[in-house]
Structure formats: C-alpha cells, structure tokens
C-alpha cells in the first residue's frame, strides 16, 4: 500500500520523479485525488513554507519543491476537474500598480496553490479597480498585494482602501514585499502582512479560518 506520507516527503524534498510515481501508485490504490492533495501535497508544501520561514531553505529549494508538487498535480487536476471538485478557498494576487517585479508575488502564488487555494493571478501593475473587480467576480476569500518598490506603497494603500470601500464582506486583504512592514499594514488597514512566502501561507490559512 503506497503512503501519502511518502508523497509529502517527496514534495518537501523536491523529488519530482518520486512525487509522480507515488501519485500514480496512490491513484491506482483507489485513493481519491482530493485526499491525495489534502493529505499528501498540502502538508508537503506546508513543510516547505515552514523551512523557508526559518531560513533552513531558500528560494531555489522552494521552487524545486513546487516543481515536484506540479508534477503530481498534472495527474490529479484533470481528475479533480472531471469530478467537479474545486479548492475550498479562492485567492486573488497581483503586484501593486506601478510595480513590475513579480518574483515575490509568484512565490506567494505558488505557495498558496500548494496550500490548495484556487489562485487567480492578475499579474503585475494591478490597479485598485482590477483587484476589486476580480475579488467580486471570483468571490475571493483573500486578496494579496505585493510590492518591491517603495514608490508603489501608496498604490498599495489605495488598493486596500478600494477593497475595503467595496464592501466585500468575506474578502480579507493581505500585503507583502520587501519595503512592507506590519506597521504599514496596520496603518493602511490591511487584514494581514507576511514578511515572506512561507509566512504568507500560514497567514492565509488563518485568515480564512483554517488552522495555520
């Protein structure tokens, strides 16, 4: 009997061939795809986020783990779609208006997918109006705004204010990026701040009411 724990370990270690093989074996053994995601992949990426937060690993190891996760998801996603099973939570993400730097945003998007969020990535240079429209359209539980440039922090504030003014109850707004601090998040009324992509996962889970 193949074990989901082995899949978790393969993902955390970034072993994509193992992740693929174990996923095939688990499916062959009749384990439902959503169980494989929730008990195999999500804990694996959660370990990755935690190690990243503690500086035990850095960006390369995180990207390699995500590749292993994607390898497994290639098999699982068509089955989940066919069965009409969707992630429980939806998150919108993008970089603040005026900011084209997306490495950090991409890492957070990847880690949120790894936590089994349905992630809608709006890309870079996202206006306040686009965040609001996407949050409304997708009934997002979470909106993430990222900035690398200090100069785009005012745009971040504008987006947070617009999202709050839109009266989207049930949508939490989180911000992050090199120049951003908890003080700034508090000042502009964001629901949360994450210093890195690892923290962004536990923050997201906590804000939607799951155990972090």
């Amino acid at each position: 009997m193949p074990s989901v724990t082995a899949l978790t370990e393969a993902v955390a270690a970034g072993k994509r061939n193992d992740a693929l093989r174990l996923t095939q074996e688990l499916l062959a053994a009749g384990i439902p795809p959503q169980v494989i995601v929730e008990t195999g992949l999500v804990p694996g990426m959660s370990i990755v986020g935690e190690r990243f937060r503690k500086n035990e690993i850095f960006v390369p190891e995180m990207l390699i783990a995500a590749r292993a996760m994607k390898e497994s998801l290639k098999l699982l996603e068509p089955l989940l779609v066919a069965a009409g099973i969707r992630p429980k939570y939806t998150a919108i993400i993008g970089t603040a208006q005026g900011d084209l730097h997306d490495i950090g945003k991409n890492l957070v998007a990847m880690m949120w997918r790894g936590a089994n969020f349905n992630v809608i990535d709006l890309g870079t240079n996202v206006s306040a109006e686009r965040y609001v429209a996407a949050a409304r359209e997708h009934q997002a539980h979470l909106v993430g705004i990222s900035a690398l440039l200090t100069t785009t922090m005012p745009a971040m504030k504008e987006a947070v204010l617009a999202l709050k003014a839109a009266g989207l109850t049930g949508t939490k707004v989180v911000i992050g990026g090199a120049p951003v601090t908890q003080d700034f998040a508090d000042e502009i009324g964001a629901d949360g701040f994450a210093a890195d992509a690892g923290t962004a996962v536990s923050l997201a889970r906590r804000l939607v009411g799951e155990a972090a």
Partner: protein
Amino acid sequence: MNRTDSLRQTLARRALLGDGATGTQLQSMGLKPGACGEFWNTAHPDRVRELHRRYVTAGADLLTTNTFGANAFVLGHHGAADRGRELNVAGAQLARELAGDAAWVLGDVGPFGGMLEPLGETLPEDAAKAFRDQAAALLEGGADAILVETMSDPVEMALAIGAAQAAGATLVIATYAFQKSAVGLRTMMGTTVAAAVAAALAAGADVVGANCGTDLSLGDYEKLAAELVAAAKGNPVIVQPNAGSPILREGRISYAESAALFAAAAPRLLGAGARLIGGCCGSTPEHIAAMRPVVKPTG
C-alpha cells in the same frame, strides 16, 4: 593610456567614490512609480544630465549609467524589447558627457527579472544574449567598465560577467544584494557572501561586492564589507549601501540614513577593507558629497 586602464591604475593606488541612487533621484525629478526610467535617456536627456551633473559636483569618481533595467527582458515589460541598443548607447553617452576627465563611467547592468532554468523558465543562453547586447551598447556609448549589480543568483551573475566580457568589457564590477537571515547574510537565493564572491571571481569579475539589499543598516553593511573582503582574496571590494530602509509617512517616502551618517560610515567601510564606496536606493548627491572628504582624491 585608455580610460579603463587609468581606472584600474587609480584603483590600485587609492580608494574610489561611486555615485548614489539613480531611480529614487529620477523619481524626485518626476519619474512616475513603475514608469521606465531608462526611457528618459532619450525622452528627457536633460534630466539625466542634471542627475549626473549633481554627482560630479558632489565629487563622485564613478558615474553609473541610467540603464539598470535596459535589458531586453525588463524593457519587454514596458513594450520596448527592441529599444535596448538605443537606450544603452544614449545612457552611456550622457554619463560620458558629464564625466569628462573628472570621473569614469560604469555601464550599469541589472538582473533580467526572472529565474533561470531549471528553477524558472528562462534559458541561460537567452539571458546571456540580453546581457551581451546590453554591455555591447554600453561600451559603444563610452562606458569605461561594466557594473553588474543587485544580483541574487550566482549563476545569473556569472552569465552576466561572461556576457560583458564577450561584449568587450575589460573591467567588470560585480555586486550582489544581500539580506539578513537566521544563518547570516545571504542573497535572496540563499547564497552566502563567500559563495557569491567566489562565483563572481570564477566568472572573471575584477571587483566584487554588494549594493542595495533588504533591511540593512549601515552597521550591517560594515559587517558585510568585512565578509566581502575576507572572501575576495585580495581583489578590490565595492560596497554601495542603501540609505537605510524606506519609510512611508503621509504618502511620502523618506530614507532613514542621512548624509551625515554616510560620512560617519565611510571610514568604517574603508577600514573594513572596501576600496570603492558609494550609495544605492535613497542616497543622494548630499550623501556622496559627505563621503568625499573621507575618500581622498589623492594619496
């Protein structure tokens, strides 16, 4: 003697003073957040000249061209992937014009903005071509050396150094952005100071060091300088700190470290063994002028 040789010989004789920030200075002259500052090399050459003039007046030995993001990848995000040569040549010419005989020109090359295979999607040869094209245009416009800066990935750094040399650069300065971590100073990719410097030297860099970085105080840069010197095996070390971390108050951005603090830090950076010092984000002509008496032009 050509200018690159005179730069090399002067560096062997004394410490050199770089210039300060480009991006944050252009923003103070009206560049909008997220707009492409490199477009100003042709759209507002007068303002770019003024920036260089201020740094020459402040006493900088080295002028950095306004070309940090002028590679095909970053320009592509601004819909201008095909304008690289034009913007780099113009950027180097503007700096050259203001430098005259008073300063040398560093052709500025920043990261391409993504991740290389196998971690990301970009083929190393594509990134190398973008760096080579940029360096060639900078040299064509009159750059005396190539400055590859704000790098996180030692593989990308090595590609850029090799590309600059392939384009004809005979003096390459290579600097990384570091941040604090639970295990000491690292680049975003987790590379230690020693490993980062070793990769740059192995790729053929003539000068190695650090610029920018995240959440570093001037005291942190002083420690960083000592680590860089220990790793550089006798090669010259450059350190270009940010003027502290940015602070947003009532919609306006300011930087914590004043010109006076830079003046106080300069002897400590030189004491740690750095041979070239300047400034990165948030630093101004005042910061450079404040360091000038410490970095003596003669002796």
